[in-house]
């Protein structure tokens, strides 16, 4: 038994309770809103149309003792007590991997009625009922437009015009000169012109060569194909799952960490199909079958969705790394997120709009340093900075109004390279 265990369990419970609390906050708004209550209390285990952790709820009033609403109240308020005298629910428990529903003593009878009404109306409307999103409504990915070609053509055209004008000009000059002095050197043999041309070529060529060399090893907009089409837009955007739910490392250490498969399965044990969200497309325009992608997750997790059991044959997912800093760079997420209170989007872009993630910035040193030059630290809020007495005095004396990362040494070599 490891001594860390208890602390960790506490920590996990704490996290879990935060997630629960978030869910419940969303729903408490309308107490009589059956849908909201269903989503908050029931949806983790129940689906209207199909069996999940618990049985499908649609048409339940025609099954077992549930035509009697009183019995339903008693069951929901205290399942263990109800089951003791009820063979039907005993059978239910056995047929659902021996999992007994937890009690919901806090649901009033009116709440339960509202939930039943919601279930019944939804069931009557049938799967994919009225609220089905029109396929045409799905947002197709914008074709990636590359303007380089356009600019290139423009440049060439402009260059040709310039050349023609130069030609005309020189012809006119020549005519003018010929009148004055006959037999002078043509312009393309003029040494000054040749020298100027070479210098211009050298400068332009040099500029592009250097730019190209500087860009080596930088992969802005890198968007590799991942083993599973995981859409951040669906998770973090549409469903508004907090980044921290999966990337908890940002608050604790240097890496944000890609969540382990068991974190995915926390939700995907229940969510086994992709039906409600917009149609997803790959960058090449082909359609993505969301449910199939969830199926891929199940095969990695070693989860048998029919038997609702782990087979024990899981394997980790080999994601392709997108953001990769060289080994001689030390970057710590918690420094930026917790201490600097930076948003994820500052460096990762509008992640809630991305399906598969691409690298938003070039992650170059210049980019880091520029941000460190302009970003202000939480100078007065964070007591740690009380050791910078000089700056506090300067603020008091109105010499400066804020302190940037640079001022406290944020662009020195050994802040990131050691």
């Amino acid at each position, binding site marked *: 038994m490891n001594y860390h265990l208890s602390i960790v369990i506490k920590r*996990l419970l704490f996290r879990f309770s935060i997630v629960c609390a978030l869910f419940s906050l969303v729903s408490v708004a309308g107490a009589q809103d059956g849908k909201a209550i269903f989503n908050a209390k029931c949806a983790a285990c129940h689906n209207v149309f199909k069996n999940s952790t618990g049985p499908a709820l649609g048409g339940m009033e025609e099954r077992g003792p549930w035509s009697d609403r009183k019995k339903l109240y008693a069951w929901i308020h205290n399942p263990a007590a109800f089951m003791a005298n009820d063979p039907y629910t005993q059978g239910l428990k056995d047929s659902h991997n021996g999992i007994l529903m937890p009690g919901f003593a806090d649901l009033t009878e009116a709440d339960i009625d509202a939930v039943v009404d919601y279930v019944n109306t939804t069931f009557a409307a049938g799967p994919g009922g009225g609220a089905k999103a029109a396929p045409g409504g799905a947002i197709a990915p914008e074709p990636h437009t590359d303007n380089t070609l356009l600019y290139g053509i423009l440049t060439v055209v402009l260059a040709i015009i310039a050349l023609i004008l130069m030609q005309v000009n020189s012809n006119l000059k020549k005519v003018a000169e010929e009148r004055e002095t006959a037999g002078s050197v043509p312009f393309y043999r003029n040494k000054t012109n040749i020298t100027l041309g070479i210098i211009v070529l050298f400068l332009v060529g040099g500029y592009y060569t250097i730019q190209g060399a500087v860009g080596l090893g930088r992969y802005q907009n*890198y968007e590799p194909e991942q083993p599973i089409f995981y859409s951040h837009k669906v998770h973090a955007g549409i469903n508004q799952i907090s980044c921290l739910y999966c990337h908890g490392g940002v608050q604790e*250490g240097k890496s944000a960490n890609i969540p382990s498969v*068991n974190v995915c399965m926390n939700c995907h044990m229940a969510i086994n199909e992709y039906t409600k969200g917009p149609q997803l497309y790959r960058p090449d325009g082909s359609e993505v079958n969301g449910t199939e992608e969830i199926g891929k997750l199940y095969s990695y997790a070693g989860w048998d969705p029919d038997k609702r059991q782990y087979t024990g044959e899981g394997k980790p997912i*080999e994601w*392709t790394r997108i953001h990769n800093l060289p080994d001689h760079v030390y970057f710590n997420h918690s420094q930026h997120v917790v*201490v600097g209170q930076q948003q994820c989007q500052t460096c990762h872009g509008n992640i809630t709009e991305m399906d598969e993630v691409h690298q938003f910035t070039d992650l170059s040193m210049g980019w880091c340093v520029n941000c460190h030059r302009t970003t202000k630290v939480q100078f007065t809020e964070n007591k740690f900075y009380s*050791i910078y007495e000089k700056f506090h005095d300067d603020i008091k004396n109105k010499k400066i109004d804020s302190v940037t990362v640079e001022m406290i040494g944020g662009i020195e070599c050994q802040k990131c390279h050691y």
Partner: protein
Amino acid sequence: MSQKKYWQNLGELNNTEGYRKLVKDEFQEDLPFTSAGKTILDAKAPRRDFLKYLGFSTAAATLAASCETPVIKSIPYLNQPENLTPGVAQYYATTFVAEGDVTPVVAKVRDGRPIKLEGNPGSFINSKGEGTSARVQASVLDLYDTGRLRFPVETAGDELKELPSFEAVDKKITGELGGSQVVLLTSTINSPTTLQVIGEFLAKYPGSRHVQYDAVSYSGLLLANEAAYGKRTIPTYHFDKAKVIVSLDADFLGTWLSPEEFSGQYAKGRKINQKNPEMSKHIQFESVLSLTGSNADDRFLHRPSETGAVVLNLLAKLGGNVSAPAINDEKLKKGIDLAAGLLNENKGASLVVCGSNDPNIQLLVNAINELTGANGVTINWANPMQVRKGIDSEMEQLVKDLNAGSVGTLIVYEANPAYNYYNAAEFIKGIQKVKLSVSLSDRADETSALCKYIIPSHHYLESWGDAEGRTGFFSLLQPTIAPLFKTRYFQTSLLKWSGSDLDYETYFKEYWLKQLGDQSTLDKALQDGVVEPASLSFASAPYNGAGLSDAASAVGAAPKGGKAELVLYQSVALGSGAAANNPWLQEMPDPVTRATWDNYAMISYAMAAELGIKLNDKYEVEFQKPVVAFTINGQEVKLPILAIPGMHPNVIGIAVGYGRGKGAGRAADGVGYNAYPLVNGKGNTRSYFVTDVSDYKKTGETYDIAYTQTHNQYEGRVEVVREYTLEDFKKNPDAIPEYRKELAEDFAKKTGDFRNEGTLYPKYDSPGAHWGMSIDLNACTGCGACTIACMAENNVPVVGKSEVKRSHEMHWLRIDRYFASFRDNTEGDNLNVVFMPMLCQHCDNAPCENVCPVSATNHSSEGLNQMAYNRCIGTRYCANNCPYKVRRFNWADYTGADSFPDNQHFSGVGKLDEAVLMMNDDLTRMVLNPDVTVRSRGVIEKCSFCVQRLQDKKLEAKKSQDPSVIRDVKTACQQACSTGAIVFGNVNDQESQVYKIRTQEQNHRAYYALEHLHVLPNINYLAKIRNTSRPVGVKDEFAEKKAVEHLESHG
């Protein structure tokens, strides 16, 4: 000040031509094609070569740069362990155990890999501190040792055949066990559960026995204590409570019993309160210069055969009723008088320890300690030590029994008599007569290779377990990593063979649950790592002096030594030699001789002169040590010599622990000479000296020893070390402040503030933290733990013997050893040795910074001299301009970090040693600290003040919004130091210890190395104070001559 001279090597002392050339050329060798006295233009086809190299490098750079985008995988866990966040270190309390040694430690585990160890501050065994020894620091590397066996094997000649499963092994072995006597041969075992397992195993096979065998024996001490105190154990010692410490041959700061614990205690008595300067007095009697002797206030030399006589004289002088043989050596006599006088004056506050393995001598020492009232005060019998239990006669008996064929089965664990027994040949003969022999050690070492089966046991960092280093003081082990290989607890093997179904893990947990009551107490104990009483208790033991007169007459009748004598000692780095395959330890320079990767014969200058050996530049600067043939016990032994001051003129010293066989591993193979066969096994106990070295002569051969004492020289600048006698310091405590005032008058007359007035350099503001370090030369014993801690923390590469020879060692922190003596014939007694840890001084006016053409090294606002490896282009101007010589250049691809994979496989000059390649094995690289860049070829590196730790602590402080958090930051060297010599902190913080030391507590001792250069270091030293009436240092003849000339010219 100018009357002293401290020197590190003979060239420096005599200012020889070779030495001058050495210090003139910063980098000691020319480019290969100019070595034969030719210039680059005379070399063959230099232009073609140049074009070839140019073409190749252009092509290579193009290729390397234009490769396709590498696809990197990020693979998260399938099921992430609940207590783990990748990238965040975890700390587990466990215990270092090896050959009876016990050190409770805390292991830092990063992403499942233990990478660093610190002492567990919750334990009395660590004196409630975090200090450890070099060996403990290095033991984390042993976990990833390529020499470990990866599965159980059956030996067939030289071949090792893998056994398919443990079940198959058990079946084979239980089939053969029994019927005849079973002997379990181990090193000292002090784990209570293991002893119980062994008890059960032995009970299953009646007539069997357990023999504990220590590579270096303490049998004499154990037997003497049994005779005098009725207990066959070793008491705990309290050097901190002793005002007078007399050590007879005991290297208690280096290798004797529990050196890191003793160092901590010792330093308590050596640290000085400048307002009321008092310190303990340490007198050492010894034959070869040891680490402890180097630290002593007064040191007296004797032959090893005279130890008994010295003890008898001391006892007689203290009023013991014994007759003492006369001692002819006047100086030694004076020493005995001095020691006796001080012991008499300080009754109840003194301690005499002795390193002899002769029970009679130890009995006499017990009598001395009785007379001086040490029993119960500095010698504590409340919780005796359990670290050594081997009795020599038991091992002797075992070897006899083996040869008589009366032993049916021999099971060996962690004992290696085929290598380290004095009579290994007899043991090897014996083991071949055994029907079944099984080794449970971790590798196919000398003994294991002779066994029929080897079933490797886990490393301690992979194990559950316990240890009882002191009676009643328990330390627990818990695994920090899953076993790397197919290994098994040796206890589980014993349990299986005694018919139990339990494995050791369950057995251990059940045992401790029963001891501690419930699971939560056990969890707490595992978290603490130790189960110890709340406070230390002291007790004396009733003394029985009955055997004294017999002992005295036996000692008095001991044979006289021959022409010369031999002392066998353990090196501070390697100890008994069990960890010989650890390249960190092999490359750690010996504190006294500064040699690496070898053992050798230490001799005196007098003996060198007698042998006709010229200690010239060829010897000192070019490393070619003459090989001398010694006739020891009638047997000829050829060894290279090192002439060392402070040796008895007629004594040679050789370290044991070297000369391991192939089975020890790639790094240990072929290093040094095995001196264990020279141990004297006559009588009841093994004695570690030989009185009969009848002849020695030069052979004309030479042998290169890679030693670092001529590297990193100060070009004759001597103001690096400051040393005063206690009396001088009391008389004139202002010497250092006065000196500083003098300097200020020269350069900053107006304000006295050099930083603002006397320099062209910019003044760097430190608005926040400004890091500084203080090193107390009085507390530093020179043990080298900091050097190894630094290697482990900062991924410092191992370079191997061939590269050390070329001055390419990479240690960021070295410990300079200075000798100072009057240059007369009394070299030995008047020798002072000063140890000075030298690392980057992080100068605020750093000379290295402004010579860097690419600004790869520059200054931070926190006072750090920063090094940006990826900016460095390798001009080495910085190293050249550094007055302290602390910058290290990666001459070759030591770490395998280069982009060209075959950079390590070149031939010719600079071919990398096997040990370097071993350090680059995927397994060994698991020890690397992921927060520190692994440097590649062609860049400079140096101490960074453990900037990764500073950044980490600052982050913690920012997260908890509390600036006081950064007061806890510790550098690796500081944390590993068991004497607390190193103090580190933010000097802008007036509450920090380093600020207080510099400005209040020790401002009369605090000085900066080479202060007159005005480079404004951020490391200060506290001057060494020696409690002696001898003058300290040597006369600087040159300065004296000059002074006389000066006077004459005026006269």
